[in-house]
């Protein structure tokens, strides 16, 4: 575990993303940060201090496998969990009322958890996680179990917390759901960090200088017009409408390529193919196991 811990810095005030295939050690790492389990070796620093029980109050944790006491009333339970996080009773109650109003769930206060739907329970769980305004918010697969409307609601709340200064650590194996929320990522596999950095940088680093054209015209003249600027990759022609991928030859620029093509065909769209985090993820994990068989990651 120490590989990640020594090298991976969670950037303050940013949304960080922890990525890895099943069994990579995401949950183990998160449990260590939450002091649920201890590390085999190494240590965790929280704002420069060695992690200790007092930091519990500064961390909010939404586990992947989550649940509530089924027989307990919603309000009572939320108060209990908030108090366990170190909030005084009165403050917890006041803030809970605000959140319950915001999410339009005042009427649930005296209901038993088992009377709520799964989605409603998730909302309660989310509120409990963020109620004490933690400096570090750890969300393990936060959107599982939410419908698109509620997922959006939650997403907005997360962004709000981020803008208020919370540091957020996401953990998923499904990059798509949080890609737009994240500034930083760390990819781990087999309990080792294999990639980290800002999303922008990593994408830049992994882009393959490939562009996609959609056009109307003759494929032959299109190919000829590429000159030495680019090399034709995948392409297909449907009557007059063509679609083609072109990889830029080193030394050429996208503008030169475009200029040359413009003269022969009518362009509908032209865009750079940027690898999604998913693609980077897969290629990176597979590179770790050249045979590609050991990775149990699926999209």
């Amino acid at each position: 575990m120490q590989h990640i811990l020594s090298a991976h810095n969670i950037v303050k005030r940013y949304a960080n993303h922890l990525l890895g295939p099943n069994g990579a050690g995401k949950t183990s790492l998160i449990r260590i940060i939450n002091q649920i389990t201890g590390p085999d070796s190494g240590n965790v620093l929280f704002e420069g201090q060695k992690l200790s029980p007092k930091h519990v109050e500064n961390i909010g944790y939404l586990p992947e496998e989550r649940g509530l006491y089924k027989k307990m009333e919603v309000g009572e339970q939320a108060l209990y969990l908030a108090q366990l996080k170190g909030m005084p009773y009165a403050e917890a109650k006041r803030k809970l009322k605000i959140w319950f109003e915001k999410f339009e769930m005042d009427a649930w206060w005296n209901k038993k958890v088992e009377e709520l739907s799964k989605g409603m329970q998730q909302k309660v769980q989310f509120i409990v996680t963020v109620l004490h305004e933690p400096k570090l918010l750890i969300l393990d697969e936060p959107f599982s179990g939410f419908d698109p409307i509620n997922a959006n609601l939650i997403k907005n709340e997360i962004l709000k917390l981020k803008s208020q200064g919370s540091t957020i650590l996401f953990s998923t194996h499904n990059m798509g759901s949080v890609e737009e929320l994240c500034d930083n990522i760390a990819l781990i596999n087999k309990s080792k960090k294999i990639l980290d950095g800002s999303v922008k940088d990593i994408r830049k680093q992994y882009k393959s200088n490939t562009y996609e054209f959609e056009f109307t015209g003759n494929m032959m003249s299109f190919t000829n017009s590429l000159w030495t600027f680019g090399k034709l990759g995948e392409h297909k022609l449907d009557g007059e409408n063509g679609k083609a991928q072109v990889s830029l030859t080193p030394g050429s620029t996208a503008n030169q390529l475009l200029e040359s093509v413009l003269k022969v065909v009518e362009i509908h769209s032209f865009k750079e193919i940027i690898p999604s985090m998913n693609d980077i993820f897969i290629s990176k994990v597979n590179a770790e196991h050249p045979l590609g068989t050991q990775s149990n990651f699926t999209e």
Partner: protein
Amino acid sequence: MNKVLLIIKREYLSRVKKKSFILMTIFGPVLMAGIMIVPIWMAMQKTEKQKIEVIDESFLFRDLIPEKDIVHFDYPPVEIEDARAGFYDTDYDAILYIPKNVLNGGQEGINLFYKKQLSNSVQQHIQSSISKMLYEVMLAKNKVDLNVIKDAKDKATFTLTTIQIDEAGNDKETNTAINVGIGFACAIVIYLLIFLYGAQVMRGVMEEKTSRIVEVILSSVKPFQLMMGKIIGVALVGLTQFILWVILTTSIYSVAAATVLKGMDMKQVQQKEQVIKIGADLDVQAMGKIENNAAIDLWSKFQQVNMLEIFICFMLYFLAGYLLYSALFAAIGSAVDSEAETNQFMLPITIPLVFSFAIAQIVTQDPNGSIAFWFSMIPLTSPVVMMVRLPFGVPMWEVLLSMSLLVIGFIFTTWLAAKIYRTGILMYGKKVSWKELGKWLFYKG
């Protein structure tokens, strides 16, 4: 520490507010009081007077069998065959047949024919009075003075009074039967309570694990805090319930007993008082004297047993025994995913408790022998075995030693359980074996 208090509070309140707790608390004593009152009530129900037709071919017993409030004898001059044939035409409840040769070894031919089974006390009365009369007739026939025999019997009958001399040199009369009774009652109650509340701890742990709330809670508190909070919370539930039971049972019992007694025939009460007075009289038969004094003796001996000491020890052994076992119950709850899986781990916990009852039998025979001593020291068996020994009088140092060992045992099982609990509570979908549990003990962290 504050967080443990929060957990204790939740565990306590969530259980005490449950309907099942309230029902158990109310109906437990009703049941207990019922168990105590019903036999008294039954005993006080006057049974209908039984009419018995005596066919005495020996002519020895005519009009002589003593009557009683539950039985009346008639001696009509009929043959046994006729009596049998016409049995259902008469309102007699039974026919007592005494053969002619009853004095010459024919006593086994005495029969009682009945329509409906006669009560045990009626049968007893008939058998003992006829036996006594036969005995007296035989003695008279052989010219033996009845009074000599009576006198001899009187002077030869006694009960062995056992007196314990305590360390202070005071005498203490004891009664083995009472000691055994009190000891066993306490032991059974402790056994039941340990299981009742231990299982509650186990189910509570399993609930947290299966509902998956445990990970949320563990991000706020240490596993040990959660476990101890639960164990202590349930212990308080147990104490609350037990104290409520004691209060309710005694109040229901005294109220009910008062109303039942009020309905009792005043004559009966007077009769009983008279019997006691006569019992104190020296001129009365030896048998009667022993019988009546026994009741008074029993009560005085009951008071001789130090009830306060036993009550205090009971509470302490219950608490410490519960803590010892509930830690193990918590460990089991954390290791499994469902109730069905608990069985394989329950057995080793059940065995010492059941075993201690087997030991308790031996203990009552020899309350201060080495078996009694050692098993009242071993923490797993001491709550039950020591409770059985206590009414017989156990030296203070032994009680203190056993109690300290129990506390050490409880600290040890808690430590052991905490290690299993810490790992088990986050382990899902894995069928846990004993080997696996062993491994968890040595995880560091």
